[in-house]
């Protein structure tokens, strides 16, 4: 009697397996979209950059100290833009990482439950404000305040852009770090408290080390955000290609250069147009390196509670 039942059952099963396979395939394709996106980005950037690097040697690109691709006297020293990007990022991170970490520790270990529930989403709003709004905020609000303390400060400078950027990045750092700290099992904390430790001791000596890998990824994301931020810098940092590591000066960054040119929409094929892809590629490689470093770090310090 079992054999009788078998053949319709078998057919049913084949149909089911087929359907399952098809669905899996569709979902797999959805997951692949992210890979296609990366491939697309790399393809676009590399395609145009290749043409660019046929005309500009990589050595010159990396060592020249001037960046004037749109001028009569053309120079293509990416270091100039990179210095602006790095300086503004360092300023931003100098704000975001300490403040973000302190906030994360405070919210996860110190704050009363209610405050945490309110403060965290409120902070996340900071990440939701359009960056162009921040740009004008930096230019029209923060810079004058800074000038009040330090009158020599030029109207456009990396400092105020960096500070505002830092504030914008705080929630990325604090939110993810806080999640990581909250994921530290309560029994670790209880272990520490049971030894007579205070909150601060528990937080710093037990919770932070245990959540290290999560905190590291928060930092990495913060770095990528800082490096990739565009509009704040375009508005408030003064797009001046200036090889400087002094945050008190105006400077152009890779991203602000890209929007500037993108706004101008130089003719396709001109070397000026291709510079944005070379610059974009540099940026992409930089963030990519950061993320890989973060991935390795996370693998190495993977929590094993």
């Amino acid at each position, binding site marked *: 009697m079992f054999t009788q039942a078998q053949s319709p059952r078998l057919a049913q099963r084949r149909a089911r397996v087929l359907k399952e396979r098809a669905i899996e395939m569709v979902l797999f394709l959805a997951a692949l979209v992210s890979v296609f996106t990366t491939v697309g980005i790399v393809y676009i950037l590399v395609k145009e950059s290749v043409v660019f690097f046929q005309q500009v040697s990589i050595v010159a690109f990396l060592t020249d100290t001037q960046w004037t691709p749109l001028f009569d006297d053309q120079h293509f020293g990416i270091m100039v833009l990179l210095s602006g990007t790095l300086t503004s990022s360092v300023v931003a991170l100098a704000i975001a990482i300490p403040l973000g970490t302190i906030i994360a520790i405070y919210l996860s270990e110190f704050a009363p439950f209610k405050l945490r529930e309110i403060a965290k989403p409120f902070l996340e709003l900071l990440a939701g404000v359009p960056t162009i709004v921040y740009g004008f905020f930096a230019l029209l609000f923060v810079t004058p305040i800074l000038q009040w303390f330090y009158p020599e400060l030029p109207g456009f400078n990396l400092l105020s852009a960096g500070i505002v950027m830092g504030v914008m990045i705080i929630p990325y750092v604090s939110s993810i770090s806080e999640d990581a700290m909250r994921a530290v099992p309560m029994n670790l904390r*209880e*272990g520490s408290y049971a*030894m*007579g*430790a205070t909150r601060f001791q528990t937080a710093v000596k*037990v919770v932070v*080390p*245990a959540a*290290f890998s999560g905190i590291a990824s928060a930092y990495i994301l913060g770095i990528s955000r800082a490096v990739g931020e565009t509009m704040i810098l375009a508005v408030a940092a003064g797009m001046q290609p200036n090889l400087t590591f002094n945050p008190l000066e105006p400077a152009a960054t890779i991203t602000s250069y890209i929007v500037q040119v993108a706004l101008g929409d130089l003719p396709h094929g001109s070397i000026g147009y291709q510079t944005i892809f070379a610059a974009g590629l540099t940026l992409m490689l930089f963030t990519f390196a950061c993320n890989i470093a973060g991935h390795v770090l996370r693998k190495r310090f993977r929590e094993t*509670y």
Partner: protein
Amino acid sequence: MATVSVASSVESRPQPSAPLVPKVKASGLSFYYGAFRALKELDLVVHENCVTALIGPSGCGKSTFLRCFNRMHDLYPGNRYEGEIRLYPDDINLLAPGVDPIEVRMRLSMVFQKPNPFPKSIFENVAYGLRVRGERSGRTLEGKVEAALRDAALWSEVKDRLHQLAFNLSGGQQQRLCIARALATDPELMLFDEPTSSLDPIATASIEELIADLKKKVTILIVTHNMQQAARVSDFTAYMYLGQLIEFGRTDELFIKPKNKQTEDYITGRFG
């Protein structure tokens, strides 16, 4: 006949001999998780240098009770104590609002159900409590860590890898490490919450032995769901049910002649 299960281990044990001095005494202790009353007017005396076991079916409030002693419940909002727990010889009420929970925890230490070593080296794990108490001298630390590890019967196994991560130890070793960590600070009372429930029989046996040894130095209150274990290691046993202390007495008496019908039902496995 394999049926004489619990009594066999009780009968063969030596009786506590020294005169009994109370170490802690809970009286009229109730505890509330928010509106839920998890403990109902408990009274219990724990005698110095004795092992007192708390048994009872799951959810009866054993852990809740144990955690009152070192004010673990203070860590979470909405919890409320009623009644008192007095610590002797000082005769202070551990639950009094004026008493700092940190101070309480510095005197009473706790070992948890699941081993919870810190993500640090073995050495640092044991030294943690000392550092928290302000000990800086490397010499002293080393000495105390070694002594604690020896007391926890772990020294020989880890002496060559004190600076490796504690996570690399086996479950039983981790649990002994946690005991060493608690021991290092010379606690007056040690609280164990089902310390062997996540361990294999061999590790369990080693921990039980350890507890038997430790009671010479320190008073012990232990929660267990394993009646055989309670019978093996404890001098006194308290049986709890639904947040109430149903029966308390010498372990041998309680297991062989429980006064209470509920206790008897539980011990004979009629439920739980």
